[in-house]
Structure formats: structure tokens, C-alpha cells
């Protein structure tokens, strides 16, 4: 895994949704965005509703083309139509609403759809589909009609479909939003494993601050602009700024922030339970400690 090679380059990108109706103005969803995503990194993307996260994701997948600027995915310019399949096979995308993703009449057909389009031989597809469903815990539903699944089950199928494509980079647009707490942890674990063991780049759009806390880097977008990029520690330690951006911090970070308001002086970049305990331990009256 080489962290210095970039897999996605976003250069001076703006994107405008042209209005479908002459009375209404166009919407500039992204403006002058610059970002370099390194191969093998785990990037979380945060931002309030309507800030441009999904638009950015769709640009990375060549579903949309920039109104101005360029996007280079795995060395390929997304405006080059002849490269579309190469681009889509190198970055797989899990959409915000699984209904927009699921196409097959049966779960396993649906999961096979991506690899089929990539021209993978049938025996290999079989293996990939089974493995992906097993990994995501949906094997028992493989003969189900997708529209008969619960909200979280659909989301798992959508994730399995991307896993079966084995892209170099996976872009997930709020793909854990409908999962139960253990399911969310499990998906985060699977993504991290793919990331460390196979060097797969992960771009994870989320409203869950605890998930962003586990990423290598966090990008915050606001009103179509890149406003913060940094490690989770850097980003979340400025609690005031994060809240001003309509976002939040993990609960333990918030606790330390609250205690500091009451006169303490705890570090502001606490992200995990273990770190919080270590800090609190130090401030215990000495007699009580261990």
C-alpha cells in the first residue's frame, strides 16, 4: 500500500445542477473543490444536508461530469467516455438509497450484476457472490426478492454488490444509515479489513461521527466547498467549529468538552472510551487510583 500515490484527484471542480424549469435558478452544488485521495486511505466525508457530498460521490463514479475542472480516477479522466467502464470498475459506489442500486429480481442475481458487467467468468462470479453475501451476513436471503427485504437488509445487499466487484476504491454514500448498531460496527470492520489487507481505498460519507472518528482522514464539506480536511483528532478537537457547521462530535469528545467548561483542562482530542478513561484516571484523587 503506497500512501503517496493518489487514486482520485479532484481539481478545481464545480458542479451545477441545471434547472429543469426556466423559472427556477440553477443550483451550484460544488464550487472550486480540490482534493487528492491517496491510494489505500480511509477517508470519511462529513457535511450537513445539501452540502454536496452525494454530488461529489457521483462525480467520482463518472455518473456526473464536472461543470468545470477535472476528476482523475485511477489515472483516468472521467470526461473521457471511452474510459467509462474502466472508471466504474475501479471505483464502486454504494448509493444513499439502495432502491436506486438494486436491479436484480433475486438477491444473488443482483449481487452478480456488477461482476457480470465487468466480464468476469461465471465460475468466478459464483465464488464472488457467495463470498460477498457471506461476508455481509445475507446468505440466508440469497433467493429473496430484494423488494421484500427490510430497510437494513437492502442496504447490506447493496454493499455486497460492490464487494463482489472488488474495485480498487469503494465510495459509500451513507451506506450504514439503516443498519443496527452491531451491523454498523460489522460493516466498519469489513471496510477496514479490506482497506488494510487489500489496500482498497474507502471513501465513506456518513452522518455518524463515531464512524468518522475511525477514518484516517476526515473531509468536511459545507455549501459545496471544502472547509476542513484533517485527521479525526484534528477535526473533532475543535468542537465549537464542528457544531457551527451543523455537525457533532463523538459522545466522549463532547463529555470532555463539557467537563472543560466546568473548569477542567482535559485534552480536547479524545475520541474513544479508552482515551477518555485514561484521562479521567489521571485526575482522580491519588488515593483512589488503582
Amino acid at each position, binding site marked *: 500500500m503506497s500512501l503517496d500515490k493518489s487514486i482520485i484527484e479532484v481539481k478545481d471542480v464545480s458542479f451545477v445542477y441545471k434547472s429543469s424549469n426556466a*423559472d*427556477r435558478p440553477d*443550483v451550484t452544488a460544488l464550487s472550486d473543490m480540490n482534493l487528492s485521495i491517496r491510494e489505500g486511505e480511509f477517508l470519511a466525508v462529513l457535511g*450537513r*444536508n*445539501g452540502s454536496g457530498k*452525494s454530488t461529489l460521490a457521483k462525480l467520482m463514479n463518472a455518473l456526473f461530469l464536472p461543470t468545470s475542472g477535472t476528476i482523475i480516477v485511477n489515472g483516468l479522466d472521467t470526461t473521457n467516455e471511452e474510459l467509462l467502464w474502466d472508471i466504474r470498475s475501479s471505483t464502486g459506489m454504494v448509493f*444513499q*438509497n439502495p*432502491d436506486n442500486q438494486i436491479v436484480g429480481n433475486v438477491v444473488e442475481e443482483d449481487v452478480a450484476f456488477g461482476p457480470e458487467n465487468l466480464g468476469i467468468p461465471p465460475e468466478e462470479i459464483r465464488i464472488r457472490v457467495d463470498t460477498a453475501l457471506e461476508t455481509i451476513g445475507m446468505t440466508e436471503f440469497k433467493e*429473496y*426478492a430484494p423488494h*421484500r*427485504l*427490510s*430497510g*437494513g*437488509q437492502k442496504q*447490506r445487499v447493496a454493499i455486497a454488490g460492490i464487494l463482489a466487484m472488488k474495485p480498487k476504491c469503494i465510495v459509500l*454514500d*451513507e451506506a450504514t*444509515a*439503516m*443498519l*443496527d*448498531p*452491531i*451491523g454498523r*460496527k460489522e460493516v466498519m470492520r469489513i471496510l477496514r479489513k479490506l482497506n488494510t489487507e487489500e489496500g482498497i481505498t474507502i471513501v465513506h460519507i456518513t*452522518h455518524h*461521527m*463515531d464512524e468518522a472518528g475511525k477514518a484516517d482522514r476526515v473531509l468536511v464539506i459545507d455549501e459545496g466547498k471544502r472547509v476542513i480536511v484533517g485527521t479525526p483528532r484534528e477535526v473533532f478537537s475543535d468542537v465549537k467549529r464542528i*457544531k457551527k457547521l*451543523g*455537525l*457533532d462530535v*463523538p*459522545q*466522549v469528545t*463532547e*463529555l470532555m468538552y*463539557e*467537563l*472543560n467548561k*466546568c*473548569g*477542567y*483542562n482535559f485534552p480536547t482530542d479524545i475520541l474513544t*472510551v*479508552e482515551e477518555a*478513561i485514561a484521562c*479521567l*484516571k489521571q*485526575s*482522580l*484523587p*491519588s488515593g*483512589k*487510583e*488503582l
Partner: protein
Amino acid sequence: MSIIVENLSYIYMPDTPFEKVALKDINLKIEKGEFAGIIGHTGSGKSTLIQHFNGLLKPSSGRVLINGIDTTGKELRELRRDVGVVFQYPEHQLFEETVYKDIAFGLIKQNLTQEQVDAEIRKVIQTVGLKESILDKSPFELSGGQKRRVAIAGVLAMKPSILILDEPTAGLDPRGRDEIFGFITKIHETMGITVILVSHSMEDVARLVDRVIVMNDGQIELDGPVKEVFSDIQRLEGIGLSAPQISYMMQELKKILPDINDRVYTVSAARDDILRHLGAGGSRND
């Protein structure tokens, strides 16, 4: 004015190879004015259960009474006026050409003047944190969270006496979540409406509701006050759930501070309890 569920079972596609028992013999009573949370693993039956509360699904066996009305009866219109449901995927309830028409859809059927409808729409769009300029847009030209907010607005505008929210915060940004819940808590308190919140966010549930109903594999596993339900973290984890992060921290803290209260589920309660033990700031260098 209450929800009564008696021996409710629900089977999807009965007598086919795909038969799925989604609810098994559920018994439940939710009183007028309660704020109840429903949690449970993916596929545990939460959405199936709440779709019985507005008559969208009919029991395979047993019955459901809403304010005394049996949901299998003919009074569905009356029922749906009382019960507002925000569905899990907002796309499932947005279908008009513009956001304005979408919110107006339900209102028009009430005996309101055009001005009243208009005023209500402008009020409710603000409540969900959107600008009036969004009203002329097509719901399909919105971001995921904006769609969610419009779906919530459409239901709030109807002023239901029972408000059911199926994963309302999935897709909402944290501030939007806080503002919308702030409003819902307010109407719950001032107007005494019943609120049922289905959620995978243990933090939201711990903060907002009085009573938690825990579903597991089509059955009710636990039903009680927040404090009781979240006190057994292991049991919750065993069925796909968890407790808020802060509760895990308090449990760890208890190992070194035996008299700390580990039955704490919100940041503010944790802060207060820790201050009680450490004293106000400044004493940290003792």
C-alpha cells in the same frame, strides 16, 4: 386514545416457499401521550409492526385497535387522519411535482382555505429547517436529507395525534436531527401527542423517549423505561443492539470508581455524575 395490539402475528407471503413470519404474537399497549422508542436488529419486524398502526398492513391473526378503531374496519380515512407515519425511505412518500404540492397533498383534503394551506406549508417547511425557495423544486431534485425533511414536513403539517417515525434521523445531519427532535418533543409536551420513534440510534432513543420496546426476531424481547432497558448491555449486544458510547465509558469508569453511576445514558448525565465525584474543575490537581 391509545394503541392496543393483541396477539398480533404477521406473515408475509403465506403458503408460499417464501413465507416469512415477521411478527409473532405481539401484545402491546401504548397510551395517549406516551413517547415510546422501538429498537431492534435489522429485520426484527419494526417496520412491519408500525405499518399495522395506520392500517397499511392487516394482521394475519390477532388485532390492532387505534383509539378504539379496529384497523381491519372501514374507517381507514379516520384512522389515517389521526396517525401520521414518516416512512423509513422518504422516497416512498414523495410523489408530487413540487415540494409545495407534496406537503399540500394531505392538507387539501382537510377543510382549509387556500390561505390556511399556504400559511401552514410555509410554517412547517421552516420547522424542518428548509428555506421557502425549496417549495418550487421537484422532490427528486433534493439531497437525501432534504427529501427526509420534506417527508417529515408533510406528516407534521397534518397534525396527527399519533406520530410514528421510522428511522427519521437516517440521513439527517446532527443539527437537523436536534432541531426536528426539539420540535417533536415540544409538540409532544404541549399538545400531548403520542410519539413512536423507531430508531437504530441508541443515543437518540436514550435521550428522547420514556419507554423502550425492544424487538427481536418478530417478538418483543424487552419493554420498559430507558434506564432498565439499557442497563443490560450484554443482552442488547446479543440481539444486534448496543448502548450509547457514553454508557460504555461509565461502565469502564466504574471499574476504577466503584460508586460512579453506570446507569447513565446521556452526556449531560455523565458530566453531572463525574463532577459529583471529581468535584468542580480545579480540584483536578489534588
